[in-house]
């Protein structure tokens, strides 16, 4: 399998040399079809005989409930939110991702540190500080970033939910009191941050304006190449 490493030092007790499997990350805004794509990838990989584990944000046993409650109240400072999310992230890294990789599974991550970094930076965090915070994370074997045109993002979001989400509209930042305006502005800022991150953390951009099937085929082709490369090293 492919060699694993962390961006900087690994967390105490985590030995990347003992990890196998693959860590595959799918990033992208809500309504980009991310979850659907991941579900289809999972089925496809299982059909091929690989064990698959799925992880995402705010799903840790340690703090997900408390984090959710804190968000409902919306009284946390952006810095506290960053650290709360980081706690959630590392809890899953150490208790879900690492054990699954040790067992040789393919881990499909529904978003990873990039979303977390982008959100924090858009909220005014110092980029170097946030990147240090996440510097203990494992480097994924592949990162696919689903992108949508701003127009499709708006259309799909409204069509899917009939309303705009408070956090996904960046309403906590106070850029505009108009939700629609704030949503468009916030999603553009996130996209800009991803652009900045892309230069340093190599990810592949996937055009998600296409049909679900076309996008899926594109992802499968790319993941297949990674799989072949990993299997060749077995």
């Amino acid at each position, binding site marked *: 399998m492919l060699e694993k490493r962390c961006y900087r030092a690994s*967390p105490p*007790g985590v030995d990347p040399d003992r990890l196998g499997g693959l860590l595959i990350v799918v990033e992208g805004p809500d309504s980009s079809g991310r979850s659907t794509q991941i579900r289809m990838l999972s089925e496809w990989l299982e059909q091929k005989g690989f064990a698959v584990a799925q992880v995402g944000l705010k799903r840790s046993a340690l703090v997900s409930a*408390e984090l959710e409650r804190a968000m409902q109240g919306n*009284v946390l400072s952006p*810095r*506290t939110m960053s650290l709360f999310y980081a706690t959630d992230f590392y809890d899953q890294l150490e208790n879900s991702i690492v054990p699954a990789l040790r067992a040789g599974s393919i881990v499909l991550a529904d978003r990873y540190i990039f979303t977390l970094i982008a959100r924090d930076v858009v909220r005014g965090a110092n980029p170097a500080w946030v990147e*240090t915070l996440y510097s*203990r994370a494992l480097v994924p074997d592949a990162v696919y970033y689903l992108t949508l045109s701003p127009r499709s993002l708006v259309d799909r979001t409204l069509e899917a939910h009939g309303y705009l989400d408070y956090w996904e509209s960046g309403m906590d930042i106070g850029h505009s009191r108009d939700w629609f305006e704030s949503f468009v502005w916030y999603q553009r800022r996130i996209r800009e941050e991803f652009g900045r991150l892309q230069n340093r953390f190599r990810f592949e951009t996937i055009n998600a304006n296409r049909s679900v099937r076309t996008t899926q085929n594109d992802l499968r082709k790319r993941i297949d190449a990674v799989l072949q490369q990993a299997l060749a090293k077995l």
Partner: protein
Amino acid sequence: MFDQKPVPGKLIAVEGLDGSGKSTQVYLLHQWLQGLGCKVYFTEWNSSDLVREATKKGKKRQLLTPTTFCLIHATDFADRYDRQILPMLKGGYIVLCDRYKFTSFARDTVRGNDPGWVREIYSYARQPDIVFYFKLPLETALGRILEGRPDLKYFEAGMDLGLSADINESFRVFQSRVMSQYDLMADEFGFTVIDATLPIHRQQERVRGLITEQIDLARFRGKV
């Protein structure tokens, strides 16, 4: 990120091993300043309402790793720093902290986290105007805890480090390592060392004397 812009308030932190008597000292200090009519605010480690539930659960079920132990306490600290400590300083209060970021630097480094990483996480938190380090021989601190309160908690005793199967022995080794970290930091961060073997009132005299020398208390009086 490092915000050391002048504020009208003053920040005083107390640090030291469990059993060093620092909580008693900061309590007496608080009483004294209140008695003088000063604007004073007290906050202690690990006490944010929002985060404490998660920390308690993590400790009780032993869910914490060195990394998440560090981060959950950092979350707690950030909540108190942004919503209490910094606003109070800007509002012209003397803020007393029972433990500050140095507690994390000591414990989390002993747990195997990279010292540079831990320091960077807290890099936004101001250097206090005075840090009192209540220093005493390891055996004295251990004696005070092990005689008085034998039911040590898992993380408190550093059991997660696998130092010893015996909880009292684990506590000894863990505390000795934490103490080495404090001693190293005393120079790095300019701690004011107080001899914690002295009688309580002597220590308090010294603490009050140093504060009177370094802080113009008249500025903080009669405004509440």
